[in-house]
């Protein structure tokens, strides 16, 4: 039914195009690397759409009784550690991985097309497409993994592609710093992931997902896991929490969130692909992948997920209200929305009614990928036009950029949760799941929903309304994505940039009507999703209030924002400074790691160890200096030594014999 060849082609095609563009792109076809990359992604997308169609229409799954069984398409032993432990490279199809490949290839395709216009004229355009292909390959490999180590491998690979793309403008120190920061912080979190893998694999005696999940969630087999404890928690909880820590790093959950806003130094389409729609949801994905273990064997770890998610969603939403760089607003918004997905997973159960959270989380992942990619691409179009990231340089752009304006508005409405746009439905399900499980988290989600509507419309009004349009292109010189752009034709944007905006805009309207309960559930059996109009009154009203507040403050030019900021003086400043988390990190790296560990180590190395080695050498040569005098070459000296020696031995002899 599933032919391994064409399923394998989905990730392998971008892999080949990575090598092709990377090795030959610059010299053989510098102009066409971008088209080659785009074409390959198009094929990949068509294949994954076909696989998705096939998968979701196969009907009842026979033995397991699940509607959507897990299918191992193929599984190849890549690295055998020991008879039971091996890293396999394989492809596993189940509802979430099928959904993810569609999202990844689709958003990637949109970004590829958008970049044709956006990155036109860049010097290193073939490198750019090469890295995009690498990223797409790695992300597809990640979601299709059959083995927890396989996911770790691709996890690192998406990390490096993100690093390469953030640092694409490698001549700019800010971009280099941001790429370093992103890589190192996620690396630090991945350390947790790695140790988590080691713990899980040790106790479950496997690295394979299916076996691991079976072993860990069957009480008879997981006895060891729960018994052996460290600091009061079972090995399983440690393993799962550490794996989640890795996920939190990639998904920019508090306290690992600080890399994501800085990552906006990369080209904007990259932000849309990697830092909004796909890579940053990898943390959600890993929790969803191991969800049976989390929910059945270790609810404690799931609570950690829920609390981290809820806290992050509120925290990031507050910061988003104060930022003035439009990409940073969107970055914090992404963090906040991923927090939503996380806590939805955290409050979910495994089967039946309580498993709504899982479905809702995946649903939100799906809708969010659409509208957030749209927001970023829209922001890219605006930056392309204005040559600045700062809100202050924008305003009144609705005339100049009509298509961008409409699509951006759709995305804003979607993220704010206004019916009937897609975000409304998914957010609704999440809040419902939270309401059923944990009231506190529900209220956090509700408040966040209101703040979300406020900050996103603050962004919208600032860009498209507010003041009269500034003279075209008077943005300052510190443009992030700087390249000479001539808008001679009078058209707002190249058509390659408009098409993705329009497609994503349409999807952001209709995606909410997807029958997710039938498609994606925690245990593979369909879940009846009921829509309760009464329940949605509160979130929608709050969202509307948020939008209205944003309109009052930012719809026209006035001094209300300043007054509001002044009224909330200390709090506003703290939020504007991102609650000083960056400073904490800076303190730890500068003061603790460099000054308190690195410097003493370097000193110890030079002054203790090396000094003593040198001293050994010196003392040997000093000794030889002393001994050398004995060998003076004078016969008289030797005669004295001989006589002295003879006398000495004589006395010794007499002493012993007496």
């Amino acid at each position, binding site marked *: 039914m599933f032919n391994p060849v064409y399923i394998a082609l989905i990730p392998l095609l971008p892999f080949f195009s990575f090598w092709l563009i990377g090795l030959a792109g610059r010299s053989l076809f510098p102009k066409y690397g971008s088209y080659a990359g785009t074409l390959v992604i198009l094929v990949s997308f068509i294949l994954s759409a076909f696989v998705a169609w096939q998968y979701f229409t196969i009907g009842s799954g026979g033995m397991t009784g699940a509607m959507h069984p897990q299918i191992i398409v193929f599984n190849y032993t890549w690295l055998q550690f020991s008879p039971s432990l091996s890293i396999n490279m394989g492809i596993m199809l189940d509802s979430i991985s099928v959904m993810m490949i569609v999202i990844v290839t689709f958003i990637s395709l949109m970004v590829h097309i958008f970049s044709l216009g956006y990155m036109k004229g860049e010097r290193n355009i073939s490198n750019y497409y090469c890295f995009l292909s690498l990223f797409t390959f790695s992300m597809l490999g990640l979601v299709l993994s059959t083995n927890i180590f396989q996911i770790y491998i691709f996890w*690192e*690979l998406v990390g490096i592609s993100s690093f390469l793309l953030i640092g694409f403008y490698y001549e700019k120190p800010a971009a280099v710093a941001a790429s370093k920061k992103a890589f190192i912080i996620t690396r630090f979190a991945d350390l947790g992931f790695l140790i988590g893998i080691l713990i899980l694999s040790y106790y479950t005696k496997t690295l394979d997902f299916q076996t691991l999940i079976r072993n860990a969630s069957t009480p008879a087999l997981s006895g060891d896991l729960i018994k052996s404890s460290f600091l009061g928690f079972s090995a399983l909880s440690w393993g799962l929490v550490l794996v989640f820590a890795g996920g939190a790093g990639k998904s920019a959950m508090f306290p690992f969130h600080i890399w994501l806003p800085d990552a906006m130094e990369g080209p904007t389409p990259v932000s849309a692909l990697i830092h909004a729609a796909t890579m940053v949801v990898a943390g959600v994905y890993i929790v969803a992948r191991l969800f049976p273990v989390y929910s059945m064997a270790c609810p404690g770890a799931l609570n950690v997920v829920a609390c981290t998610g809820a806290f992050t969603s509120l925290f990031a939403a507050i910061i988003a209200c104060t930022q003035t760089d439009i990409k940073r607003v969107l970055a914090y918004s992404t963090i906040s929305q991923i927090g939503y997905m996380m806590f939805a997973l955290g409050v979910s159960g495994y089967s039946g009614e309580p498993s709504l959270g899982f479905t809702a989380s995946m649903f939100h992942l799906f809708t969010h990928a659409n509208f957030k990619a749209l927001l970023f691409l829209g922001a890219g179009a605006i930056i392309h036009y204005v040559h600045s990231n700062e809100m202050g340089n924008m305003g009144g752009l609705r005339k100049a950029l009509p298509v961008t304006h409409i699509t951006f508005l759709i995305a804003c409405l979607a993220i704010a949760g206004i019916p009937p746009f897609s975000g409304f439905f998914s957010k609704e399900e999440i809040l419902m799941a939270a309401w059923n499980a944990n009231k506190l988290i529900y209220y956090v989600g509700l408040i966040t929903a209101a703040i979300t509507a406020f900050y996103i419309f603050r962004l919208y009004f600032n860009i498209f309304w507010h003041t009269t349009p500034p003279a075209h292109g008077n943005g300052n010189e510190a443009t992030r994505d700087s390249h000479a752009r001539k808008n001679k034709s009078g058209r707002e944007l190249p058509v390659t940039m408009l098409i993705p905006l329009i497609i994503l805009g349409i999807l952001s309207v209709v995606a909410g009507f997807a029958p997710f309960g039938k498609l994606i559930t925690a245990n593979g059996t369909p879940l009846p999703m009921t829509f309760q109009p009464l329940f949605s009154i509160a979130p929608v009203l709050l969202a509307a209030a948020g939008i209205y507040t944003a309109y009052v403050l930012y719809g026209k030019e006035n001094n209300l924002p300043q007054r509001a900021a002044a009224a909330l003086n200390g709090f506003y400043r703290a939020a504007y400074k991102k609650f000083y988390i960056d400073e904490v990190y800076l303190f730890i790296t500068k003061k603790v790691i460099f000054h308190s560990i690195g410097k003493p180590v370097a000193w110890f190395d030079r002054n203790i160890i090396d000094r003593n080695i040198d001293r050994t*050498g010196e003392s040997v040569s000093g000794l030889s200096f002393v001994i050398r005098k004995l060998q003076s070459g004078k016969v008289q000296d030797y005669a004295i030594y001989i006589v002295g020696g003879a006398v000495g031995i004589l006395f010794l002899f007499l002493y012993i014999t007496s």
Partner: protein
Amino acid sequence: MFNLTLFIVIPILTAIAVMVCRNGTQIRLAAFTGSVVQLLLSFLLLYYYTSERATGNMAQFLFTQRAIWYEALHIEYHVGVDGISIAMMMLTAIVVMAGILMSWKIQTLTKEFFFLVILLSLGAYGFFISLDLFTMFFFLELAVIPKYLLIILWGSGRKEYSAMKLALMLMAGSALILVGILAVYFHIGQERWVHTRDLAQIAVMQFPPDVQKFIFPFLFVGFGIFTALFPFYTWAPDGHSSAPTAASMFLAGISMKLGGYGCLRVAVYLLPQAASYYSWIIVLLAVIAIIYGSFATLMQKDLKYMNAYSSVSHCGFVLLGIGMLTRTAIMGAVMQMVSHGLMTALFFGAIGMIYERTHTRQIEELGGLLKVIPFIGVVYVIAGLCSLGLPGMSGFVSEMTIFTGSWQCTGMFNRVATILACASIVVTAVYILRAAGRAVMGPIGNEKYLQLPDASWSEKLASVMLIGTIVCIGMAPFWLTKLIDADTQTIMENILRNLRLS
């Protein structure tokens, strides 16, 4: 059948050819041809070895040859290979060839330079194929002395000091090894009336635990010095940074592996009970080297010093894998030796290319090289990515194998050691990205750099060869593990049998 003596004969012939050549071009061509022949030969050896194994020949060492060298002291020329030594020989062949290509432009004393490099390779090949302890020691010495000359004649910086330090420290290591070898020889001579220095023969003898515990430190520390065992590693930073490019590549790429190989093949294999007894000390020293080395790297300002300290840290992984004494960890240690050999050779090659052009290795003075000399910049970044354990490159698979293997050792001490070792990969990321971000990326450091020429054909060939091998292992590690799996199993079985019997 395959004649292993060819690996000795060909370097000798090459060395002679180099000596009789008239001019620089001839010398280079002779040396290059010799290294190519060696490389082809090692591939041929791999082919013969795998086909021999495929036919079911399960002897521990294949293609053995023996000839009596010095009857009175029972010294034999006894050679043979297993998967581990083949892996190391292929590493040697590749690194030597890359080293020769990288030093293509050497002008001063060309003849002597290539002669010494070939002599070094002779020592390394001989060491890896020897099965007789004394022959092994002989070749080990052969691989030390030329380094002194290479550094003192073609080096940079404080080269006299560094050369002397390196030679003396390595010689101290050799002295310890010699004591260990003699102790083994005389012990079995006195107690068993067997006079042999044959590895496989000695391995099956059960030494009393006290004797093992006495001899083991000599052998392990002796070989350990070669592989930068804490705290006897200080020859590495000074030696590496003063050495000319090819010598650095050889020193870090192969010479440090002589030590790791010796620790495994001689110390642990012959004296397993002592290895298990001292396991915690080895693990402790290895973890110190890993953590300490990575933090020391963080503070370096010179690219070569940086890489030398990171080598200390990475060789700590080798010792960690050996010290953990599980099959997976030992396999990882061997993989790490191969991987680190390639990666560090590439690193030193890249630094050499940068230094040759900019005449500085200070990170602060460099900058924006990716724009001016893109090929070299990319090579440096790739070496860095391999060093920080990026999947798809050899560093990742070997480190992960070590971690997984180490985790099989229960007990709080081993667990903490493993976690600390894992943590070092974060520090590695910090120092690699710091150096790459400053030296290779970022704005151009100096106007003069705009005129720099990119890599020449020989440098390109060398880099591509090393990168190709790194990626090949990283993408398809199974061929390497299949090659060495059975032999790590043999070593492990010997350890287990010894522990059972005691």
